[in-house]
């Protein structure tokens, strides 16, 4: 947190030498060892660390895959198959990378909904939240570009449909799309540049993550009560308290991860992507990867091309404004008796849109897509501002410490007792 001083002590002569010249150990100690974390953080706060793990996993496996992958229309599909069959442990590394993309999105969605539930976007964390929206956008772009590289039928037609979003721009749309393609359709030229960009964007994400963590460590973490940290009693050092919890949650997460990798590596993919790209035949039913389905449903809910594309981009962009759309005086939905219902309705809406996005765009599916799309936007534009104004929040605890230790925790002795109490106990 801003104002927090590192308690780092340089012990060896080398450490002292470095501490006077590049005090990186002092900074890391201050930010990740004795950094004060709210003592009431629950398991929903472990996804930051899990996401860091996902990013590193994708970077490491991705760099290895790039050593074997050939970004040309002629060889791309075969080289991916060769990685799976011929390259030593290629099957493992490719499966980790492919499943890793899904796990990355699973974690980021839980992280985003955690933020929405506990009001982590509210002052003073607006910039932190907006950086998060940028990271999410960059993740979407990276995932899309990466999926194209496989050069199967879904890769090719997904790339065609998504790049065609830009052709909806009035006047210059076609020119912009041809500029993206480097031709008059998606071709090997497009694949080659997508490969370059797919390699570039993760480093952009890494840079944004550094800013995200920086902003987090200036404002300090939010917590389940949404209260500000008021005294030393409210916090515990990050190591070991928060770190231990992160490690346990990561272990559970990785168990699920490797289950997919070893037992059902293709479950989250699409069978059509094992057919090589063919510019003359569109698969009968194009669907994106599961993590894009809600947005795909919004795109198809609108019977106009430009309207559908605009609404779909708006569905992501609107997240950047929630800090100002939410008028509530309290952060945490735990203390908001009315908004709580709307929060879960919104969660249901996103899941429903995901389901509808996987169905063909006909009949009742379209009608329901339109209903849920309407609520998606109403939630941000009407529910968030209005409910915040009319709702009377439930009584908040006086402090974070009180929410954990009860109203009658003592002074000095309580500090000792608190240090041993389980942080998740409320």
């Amino acid at each position, binding site marked *: 947190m801003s104002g927090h001083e590192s308690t780092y002590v340089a012990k060896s002569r080398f450490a002292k030498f470095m501490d006077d010249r590049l005090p990186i150990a002092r900074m890391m100690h201050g930010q990740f060892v004795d950094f004060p974390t709210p003592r009431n953080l629950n398991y929903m706060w472990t996804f930051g660390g899990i996401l860091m793990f996902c990013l590193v996993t994708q970077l490491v496996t991705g760099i290895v895959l790039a050593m074997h992958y050939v970004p040309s229309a002629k060889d791309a599909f075969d080289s991916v198959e060769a990685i799976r069959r011929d390259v030593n442990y290629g099957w493992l590394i490719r499966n980790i990378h492919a499943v890793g993309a899904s796990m990355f999105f699973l974690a980021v969605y839980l992280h985003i909904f955690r933020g929405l539930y506990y009001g982590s976007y509210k002052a003073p964390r607006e910039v932190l939240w907006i950086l998060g929206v940028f990271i999410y956008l960059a993740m979407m772009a990276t995932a899309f570009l990466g999926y194209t590289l496989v050069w199967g039928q879904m890769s090719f037609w997904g790339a*065609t449909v998504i790049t065609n979003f830009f052709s909806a721009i009035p006047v210059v749309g076609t020119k912009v799309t041809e500029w993206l393609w480097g031709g008059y359709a998606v071709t090997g030229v497009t694949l080659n540049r997508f490969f370059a960009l797919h390699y570039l964007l993760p480093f952009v994400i890494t840079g944004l993550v550094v800013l995200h963590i920086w902003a987090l460590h200036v404002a300090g973490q939010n917590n389940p009560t949404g209260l500000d940290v008021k005294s030393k009693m409210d916090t515990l050092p990050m190591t070991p308290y928060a770190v231990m919890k992160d490690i346990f949650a990561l272990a559970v997460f990785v168990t699920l991860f490797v289950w997919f990798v070893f037992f059902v590596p293709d479950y989250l993919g699409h069978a059509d992507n094992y057919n090589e790209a063919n510019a003359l035949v569109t698969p009968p039913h194009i669907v994106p990867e599961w993590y894009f389905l809600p947005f795909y449903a919004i795109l198809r809910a609108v019977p106009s091309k430009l309207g559908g594309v605009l609404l779909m981009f708006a569905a992501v962009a609107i997240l950047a404004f929630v800090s100002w759309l939410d008028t509530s005086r309290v952060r945490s939905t735990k203390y908001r008796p009315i908004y709580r219902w709307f929060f879960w309705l919104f969660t249901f809406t996103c899941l429903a849109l995901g389901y509808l996005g996987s169905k063909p765009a006909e009949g009742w599916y379209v009608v329901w897509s339109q209903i849920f799309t309407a609520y998606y936007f109403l939630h941000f534009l009407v529910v968030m501002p209005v409910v915040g104004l009319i709702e009377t929040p439930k009584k908040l605890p006086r402090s974070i410490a009180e929410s954990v230790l009860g109203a009658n925790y003592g002074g000095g002795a309580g500090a000792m007792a608190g240090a041993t109490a389980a942080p998740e106990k409320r």
Partner: protein
Amino acid sequence: MASHEHDPTNRRDFLTMAGLGFAAVGGAATLWPFVHQMNPDASTQALASVEIDVKGVKEGQAITVMWRGKPVFIRNRTKAEIEQAAKVQIAELRDDRARNDKLPDATTATDANRVVKGRENWLVLVGVCTHLGCVPKGQSLSDAKGDFGGWFCPCHGSHYDMSGRIRKGPAPRNLEVPPYEFVGDSKIKIG
């Protein structure tokens, strides 16, 4: 009038502005090659025309060829199909422009404006849905052809008629008629 010393715009301001202006122009000029390199290159543009022999395409049949990396539909329409396409009123159409690359933008989308005069049986279209770029179904006899008997895009449900005009669904425009001409009796040159 203010004296020279108090003039808010002095020589230094001018030099700063001029310097920044030059830097901006120079920056933009340097940026342009890095933007333009992504546009279709010389070899891609060189492939911009193809010749197709359509002798073997019988009445009621259609073939698909590649032109600039896109599928092009060439259909030999039956008399009934031509009549059906010709009697559609402009007011019934979702997009009233001909979208024929050889004709001016404002041309109306009559069937006659989407074919070559005297060769009305031949319909030549870029086989790319004007919604999000899928290839519509309708080329082979067993395909679903949509509610208007022409083509049907399975991606997001756009229906095209026997002249390749959009009639229903999210696509905003009629299928594009590429620039083409007949060279000899049975050869079509596209591009």
